[in-house]
């Protein structure tokens, strides 16, 4: 009964989405405010309906209802409740429901925080989002229904893939989808602006906070996925340039470019056409990512069950949404005109260069991801593109981008002068160069890449410090604290996010430069050393978990004779799917991780063991979280708080409303 309610709610949601996608857009075109007013209640109703469906599926999982095919396929009665709930997005059908649910959640948020938007703009935005939602609901109802019954019911479920039975997996997909789908708001804003023909600074100002929020979620989502791969896959890597990782990274690159280009459109009215294109691109890449993961056109570790019928559906949907919006772009954008002119050496110029580099990086990731497919389609053979390609194109593109990142915020709008910039930046440059050259020598291993990485990281931090000092000189306040407090939060946000990049770069550089690993055979009682640390293997014990059995090894780790920690890596066997999983044990630390994973049992209690010493690896994810924190600071800026609290139009409004306010 409950699953049928969920199914029915989805059908109703589709009807509402159709109404929401057609009437308000038509109403905005002909100026009928009655039709436009449909948008808000329709979006809210749709949200409630999809929420109901989501709740029904959650109930089916909690209730262990194995008469629902999807529940039987992805859970098991032995599976703990929190993993049963996470299993909602453990496979294809449920992930799509989550996607749609988050889309309607964003819609709902738009209805809450759009009081200051003109009615036509809001109805167009919600209409576009409604149309996107039609596609996904139709997809679920036709070829991937999560509520499909299994009659007769299965006695027991086939269980969730053990790789996904992990706290990281519980939150990684929702975070990632919040980011992916969040770009649909910026996309809808852009399409609404193209439809209405009013690409002005106000449009950019409204889009900015939405884009930033989505970007923050995506950043955290990607970091969580990378962290999960690091500790769950058991071989210590954190990024593999796998097609599905790339699928999440491309929208991130486009989104990062978008965040910056929106700033220019907002502040200077420039880059309009470019910003619109980026907004379309960011969401298109999210959709493309969905297609790549779901259709099975590329091989990947994330291979969900693939089905060509589903692939075809998404491809057609992709063609309609992206093709349609790019056609609209080609039609409307030429009339927009260019913003104010600027010299190449100016803040605009540097942001533009940065944007071009980010988009070029995105393009090369896209090319590398799709290249095997291109060759195969042209019958030129089968190849795979791996990390060497990505590393060798990505690093040269990012180095100048990061160098500009230091200068850009200090350059004047419109026109900057080289001697002036050189004067202000010479200390930062000197300090970065000297410390980048000497630090690796002090640490005992000088390589060009190590120096380059440190140079970029220190450059970001020192230029940020100079920027902050100059800023403090210009704000009012007697004490330092007072002056610090009067620096706007959006500026803090930028500084923090940029420093997040610096932290990230330090992490990557130090791990690449100094990590050590060892593959050893260890008998009970034997020791092995890595770095300054000595690991003593004290044998394994059999332990029983809720839905698995495991051999748990005990490793005493010591340094200079003093015990540092005890690590318990496990080799688990999940009987339902008969899968063996390696649970690495990690002792995390600010300056280094110690990482042990069990290989295979050899004989007489001996095991093959992998030991890693990974300096600064947590800085990689730390950097990502700092970036996201920067984004959060930026949107907590005073002007957004005021705009939302007042819920009053910040744009020119019909005089009638204004007069009523006065009265």
């Amino acid at each position, binding site marked *: 009964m409950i699953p049928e309610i969920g199914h029915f709610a989805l059908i109703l949601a589709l009807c509402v989405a159709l109404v929401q996608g057609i009437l308000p857009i038509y109403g905005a075109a002909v100026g009928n405010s009655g039709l436009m007013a449909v948008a808000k209640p329709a979006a809210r109703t749709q949200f409630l309906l999809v929420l109901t469906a989501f709740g029904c599926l959650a109930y089916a999982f909690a209730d262990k209802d194995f008469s629902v095919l999807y529940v039987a396929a992805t859970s098991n009665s032995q599976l703990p409740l929190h993993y049963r709930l996470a299993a909602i997005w453990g496979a294809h059908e449920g992930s799509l429901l989550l996607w749609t649910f988050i889309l309607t959640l964003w819609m709902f948020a738009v209805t809450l925080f759009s009081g200051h938007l003109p009615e036509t703009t809001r109805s167009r935005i919600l209409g576009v989002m409604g149309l996107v939602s039609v596609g996904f609901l139709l997809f679920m109802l036709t070829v991937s229904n999560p509520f499909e019954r299994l009659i007769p019911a299965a006695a027991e479920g086939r269980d969730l893939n053990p790789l996904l039975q992990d706290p990281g997996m519980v939150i990684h997909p929702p975070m990632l989808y919040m980011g992916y789908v969040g770009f649909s708001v910026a996309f809808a804003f852009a399409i609404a602006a193209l439809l209405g023909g009013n690409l002005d600074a106000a449009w950019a100002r409204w889009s900015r906070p939405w884009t930033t929020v989505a970007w923050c979620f995506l950043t955290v989502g990607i970091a969580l996925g990378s962290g999960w791969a690091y500790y769950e896959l058991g071989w210590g890597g954190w990024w593999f340039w796998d097609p599905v990782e790339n699928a999440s990274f491309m929208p991130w690159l486009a989104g990062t470019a978008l965040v910056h280009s929106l700033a220019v459109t907002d502040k200077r009215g420039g880059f309009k056409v470019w910003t619109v294109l980026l907004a379309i691109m960011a969401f298109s890449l999210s959709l493309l990512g969905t297609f790549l993961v779901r259709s*099975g056109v590329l*091989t990947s570790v994330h291979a969900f069950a693939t089905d060509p019928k589903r692939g075809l559906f998404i491809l057609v949907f992709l063609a309609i949404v992206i*093709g349609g919006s790019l056609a609209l772009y080609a039609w409307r954008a030429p009339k927009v005109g260019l913003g104010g002119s600027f010299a190449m050496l100016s803040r605009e110029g540097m942001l533009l260069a940065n944007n071009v580099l980010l988009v070029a990086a995105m393009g090369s990731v896209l090319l590398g991801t799709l290249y095997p497919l291109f060759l*195969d389609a042209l019958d030129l053979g*089968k190849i795979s593109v791996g990390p060497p390609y990505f590393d060798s194109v990505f690093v040269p593109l990012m180095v100048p981008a990061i160098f500009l990142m230091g200068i850009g915020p200090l350059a004047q709008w419109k026109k900057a002068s080289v001697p002036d910039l050189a004067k202000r930046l010479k200390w930062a440059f000197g300090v970065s160069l000297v410390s980048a050259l000497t630090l690796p020598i002090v640490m005992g291993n000088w390589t060009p890449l190590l120096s380059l990485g440190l140079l970029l990281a220190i450059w970001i931090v020192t230029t940020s410090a100079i920027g902050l000092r100059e800023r403090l000189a210009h704000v009012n306040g007697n004490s330092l604290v007072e002056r610090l407090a009067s620096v706007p939060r959006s500026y803090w946000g930028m500084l923090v996010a940029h420093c997040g990049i610096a932290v990230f770069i330090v992490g990557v550089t130090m791990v690449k430069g100094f990590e050590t690993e060892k593959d050893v055979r260890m008998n009970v009682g034997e020791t092995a050393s890595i770095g300054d640390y000595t690991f003593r293997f004290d044998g394994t014990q059999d332990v029983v978990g809720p839905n698995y059995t495991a051999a748990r090894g005990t490793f005493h780790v010591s340094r200079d004779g003093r015990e540092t920690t005890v690590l318990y890596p496990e080799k688990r066997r999940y009987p339902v799917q008969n899968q063996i999983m390696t649970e690495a044990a990690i002792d995390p630390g600010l300056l280094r991780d110690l990482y042990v994973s069990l290989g295979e049992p050899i004989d007489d209690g001996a095991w093959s063991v992998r030991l890693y010493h990974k300096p600064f690896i947590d800085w990689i994810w730390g950097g990502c979280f700092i970036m996201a924190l920067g984004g959060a600071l930026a949107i907590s800026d005073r002007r957004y708080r005021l705009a939302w609290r007042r819920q009053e139009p910040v744009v020119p409004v019909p005089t009638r409303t204004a007069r009523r306010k006065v009265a």
Partner: protein
Amino acid sequence: MNRFLLPLSIFVVVVGFLGIGLTLNPREIPSPLVGKAAPEFSQPQLYDQEKVFSPADLKGKVWLLNFWASWCSGCKTEHPVLMDLAQSGQVTIYGMDYKDQREEALTWLQRGGNPYSVVGVDEVGRVGINFGVYGVPETYVIDKQGVIRYKQIGPLYPDTVEKKILPLVKQLESE
């Protein structure tokens, strides 16, 4: 051309490729040995260990080489198909008993029947390495010049035999 049309044009090309991509199988692994001469070997025979089995003796014939083992479950599925093919007399099948125990291999052939005109023994898997065997069963179609013309990874099904193996054998016979 209007530069605003550029993004759309790129997208159309990408969609075209993605569409073709849907019809392809990225997991299908091609064998680099197809079109190359079959690696030479000279292995003892299963039934008469004094004799050797070597492809050099098969020049001028079209034949199948089937890697199998008594421990392999895919081979069990495949076995009736091989028996039918052998009985039809349309092509001769040679077997290579891969990383197996002699006794068990003999029992297996006694029970299920022997479709092979000669069975070679590859106890350590050296021949398998030269042929690039991923896992048993695998079947190679070899032409009159001793060149590998087709490789089947996994069991042969009646369908594959009808549609791929037999037409190819016929064509190779007439070359």
